[in-house]
């Protein structure tokens, strides 16, 4: 199989402009004849659904929460990047493009990244116009902060609740269209399958999470904006409901899954405290602007942090990376934390933690300024740990946070299945092997506000509207399959809870396909995941019935897909015999312990094609070329 990324010709700064000009347009009077199904109403989905409805398309939108306002995007704390150069510190579209390609360890598509950087400036304008209350200076202009992996200050924020405010902005735009009757919203509705007719995506099968009803919807295009799959690890910073089901079902219907092994482990999260732990809490990376990371110089130093004098502390990021210091990219910071803990220098229970210390910042700026910048994060930390970070340094440890991998899409954000578009964290585009902080919000909104409204229109202009209905055989088949699967899960009546399986799966993936991977571990993990999956299908216990609110059934469906994805992640990690960004293969590192890429053999995107339940996916490669940013060994020294 050959993949065509459909990257427009021409110089990079002209590609998007000329591509847009070349697109076909749908006559305004015809737009309402086209139905677009938007699954997921986080930043990517809400912005796409609202913008498409404004254009006049007939939109149906879906989410599993009780309201679009609750999508996981709401939890983003730190900020959103944009190449506005309001600080006059040398930022530009080109620099944001450059930083993102480099930050992604040269495993992203240049043309996509450049367009993302271009769109970034429009996003801020759009959000301000919607009433997003970004932080401001006394003079009334927008404020900025810096984030990891960049030496300019280009991050816009709204206290520690940037994701919330951006999502509320998009949500309000969406609710406005719902009120106008242009979007039909289906909340508490979960996608359980994608309907493909003659190779083209034409609909979805859903379960109503209140009544249990299995129902189908058809349209002229399907857009998946269903977020990331970090919850394969069980413990992650993602909201509990985040899942892979939508994109996994699409994968099994023919959509290629790209770079599944690229996961981001975020360096600043609250360490695990007990077996009952249900999720991990992120402490925004913006804290690294003012907090200093350290551990004791000597292993086994059990003194309380205030008893450890300066001379006995190792500010290891500042020591190892003098020019970026505490602001090195996430993958680098996470691995450095793991390294000091592996040396026995970690702090807190179990030795899995490092200090993030604000004492200097409080001395320099005063407690009030620190409170103004991070007050709500400090409060959250205290609520969870019972410790006051104004007095005692925070303890942090890396945790799974974001998945760079996702469904493969071309430059138009369309998967290899015609009519199936994928946006936001659910696709693989733009971040390569590692995402820079404050860039996911940017990507979600760029996809939804400024790319899909064009590229989807171009696609629709070439198809005849409304040509199938829900009585079509392919729809009925998909419905029957979903019904069977649900019945099967409910009839297992084994001995183990769904959560216990999920925890065990998560532990395997974390140990073998987490911060560091190696051949032996991955090979073992594949076997163990398979065995566990087989056990799940005989020994799980899913209580209740299918025709009522049944949260165990919801979880079971998601975990069942996580097993298959987990296996693919390990396969992908095994096949990529190099280290790149968040993918660190122990066999491939520099003498200083940094990731060692192999551009000669692995400068490609891995896209996996589903075959059948009986045989593993096949690998399709999309070669990457770098005409503007020449790949070098990433250095933050």
């Amino acid at each position, binding site marked *: 199989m050959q993949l065509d990324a459909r990257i427009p010709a021409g110089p990079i700064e002209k590609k998007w402009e000329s591509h847009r000009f070349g697109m076909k347009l749908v006559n305004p009077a015809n737009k309402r004849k086209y139905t677009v199904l938007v699954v997921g109403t986080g930043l990517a989905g809400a912005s796409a659904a609202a913008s498409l409805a404004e254009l006049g398309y007939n939109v149906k939108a879906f989410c599993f929460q009780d309201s679009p306002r*609750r999508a996981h995007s709401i939890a983003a704390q730190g900020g959103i990047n944009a190449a506005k150069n309001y600080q006059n510190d040398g930022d530009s579209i080109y620099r944001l493009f450059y930083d993102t390609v480099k930050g992604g360890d040269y495993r992203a598509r240049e043309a996509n990244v450049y367009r993302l950087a271009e769109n970034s400036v429009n996003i801020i304008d759009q959000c301000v116009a*919607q*009433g997003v*209350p970004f932080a401001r200076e006394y003079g009334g202009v927008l404020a900025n902060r810096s984030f990891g992996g960049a030496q300019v200050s280009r991050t816009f924020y709204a206290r520690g609740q940037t994701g919330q405010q951006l999502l509320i902005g998009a949500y*309000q735009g969406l609710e406005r269209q719902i009120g106008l009757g242009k979007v039909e919203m289906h909340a508490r509705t979960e996608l359980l399958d994608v309907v493909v007719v003659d190779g083209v995506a034409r609909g979805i099968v859903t379960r109503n999470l209140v009544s249990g009803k299995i129902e189908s919807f058809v349209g002229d295009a399907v857009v998946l904006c269903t977020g990331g799959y970090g919850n394969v690890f069980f413990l992650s910073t993602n909201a509990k409901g985040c899942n892979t089901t939508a994109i996994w079902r699409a994968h099994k219907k023919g959509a290629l899954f790209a770079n599944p092994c690229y996961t981001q482990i975020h360096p600043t999260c609250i360490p695990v405290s007990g077996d009952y732990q249900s999720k991990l809490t*992120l402490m925004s990376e913006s804290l690294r602007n003012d907090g200093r990371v350290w551990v004791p110089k000597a292993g086994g130093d059990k003194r309380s942090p205030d008893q450890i004098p300066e001379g006995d502390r190792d500010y290891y990021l500042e020591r190892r990376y003098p020019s970026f210091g505490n602001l090195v990219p996430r993958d680098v910071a996470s691995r450095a934390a793991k390294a000091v803990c592996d040396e026995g220098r970690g702090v807190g229970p179990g030795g899995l933690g490092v200090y993030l210390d604000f004492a200097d910042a409080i001395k320099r700026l005063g407690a009030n300024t620190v409170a103004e910048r991070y007050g709500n994060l400090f409060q959250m930390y205290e609520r969870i740990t019972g410790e006051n970070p104004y007095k005692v340094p925070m303890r942090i440890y890396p945790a799974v946070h974001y998945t760079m991998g996702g469904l493969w899409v071309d430059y138009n954000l369309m998967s290899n299945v015609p009519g199936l578009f994928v946006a936001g964290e659910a696709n693989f585009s733009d971040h390569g092997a590692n995402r820079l902080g404050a860039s996911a919000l940017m990507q979600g909104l760029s996809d939804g506000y400024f790319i899909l409204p064009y590229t989807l229109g171009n696609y629709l202009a070439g198809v005849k509207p409304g040509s199938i209905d829900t009585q079509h055989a392919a729809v009925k088949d998909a419905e029957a399959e979903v019904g069977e699967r649900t019945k099967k899960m409910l009839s297992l009546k084994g001995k183990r809870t769904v959560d216990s399986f999920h925890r065990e799966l998560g532990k395997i993936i974390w140990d073998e396909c987490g911060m560091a991977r190696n051949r032996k571990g991955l090979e073992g993990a594949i076997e163990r995941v398979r065995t566990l999956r087989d056990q799940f299908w005989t020994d799980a216990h899913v209580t209740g019935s299918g025709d009522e609110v049944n949260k165990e059934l919801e979880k079971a469906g998601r975990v069942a897909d996580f097993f298959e994805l987990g296996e693919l992640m390990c396969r992908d990690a095994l096949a990529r015999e190099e280290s790149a960004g968040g993918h660190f293969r122990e066999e491939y590192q520099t003498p200083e312990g940094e990731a060692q890429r192999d551009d000669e053999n692995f400068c490609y995107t891995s896209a996996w094609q589903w075959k059948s339940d009986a045989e593993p996916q096949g690998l399709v490669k999309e070669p990457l070329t770098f005409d503007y940013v020449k790949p070098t060994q990433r250095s933050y020294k």
Partner: protein
Amino acid sequence: MRLTLHVWRQRNGRAEGQFVKYDMPNASEDMSFLEMLDVLNEGLVAQGQDPVAFDHDCREGICGMCGFVINGVPHGPERGTTACQLHMRKFKDGDELWIEPWRASAFPVLKDLSVNRSAFDRIIQAGGFISVHTGSAPDGNALPIAKEASDRAMDAAQCIGCGACVAACPNASASLFTAAKIGHLGLLPQGQPERDRRAVSMVERMNAEGFGHCSNLGECEAACPKEISIEFIARMNRDYLGGAFSQRPAGARIED
């Protein structure tokens, strides 16, 4: 610590509900309240019993999905804290806890502790937005906004839409929720053109959804996990009155 739980169990919106007593012998003080319920549910499932349904997602106090009443207080005893961020160290060994859903006719129970809050979305649909099409915005810095105004707008915009204000109010009024949105948008220059009609449409929608009237008891502010001030309700009332006098026939929808 050992706790006794009395949890509201109700199969669905049509069924009768009642409190059911559970023993929780081994809660740790580092657990969140929802993790304590997870442990209860793991035990129930292991015995083949139906686990307690409750809504939750982020577990970080920001999505607004979680929420129920603990010993008569929405989200429980810790001020400014959602149920998911409430930790068991706030309770002590031997405590007896009564856990029940939000009670309001505009929030019908779906199952156990889970309720239908879609009325909130409809209030937003009535006018909780600034009518701006994608792509038509001027430069973000074209319009300077005083930091004080922007900060104040943010104080209101922090609302997570959980519904605790309604649950806390003896009249089940949604005034704090509605006022927070009217305040957020009305404090910003971008929100001025629609300010009057927004206030009128949203307040009328709120009334039509069956929420009660505000009698200034302030219970909502005390229960709000984001500690949104009831001053916004006074502001909403002013905007509503101003709008009702100056506006087009009441109830008309904002069209584009």
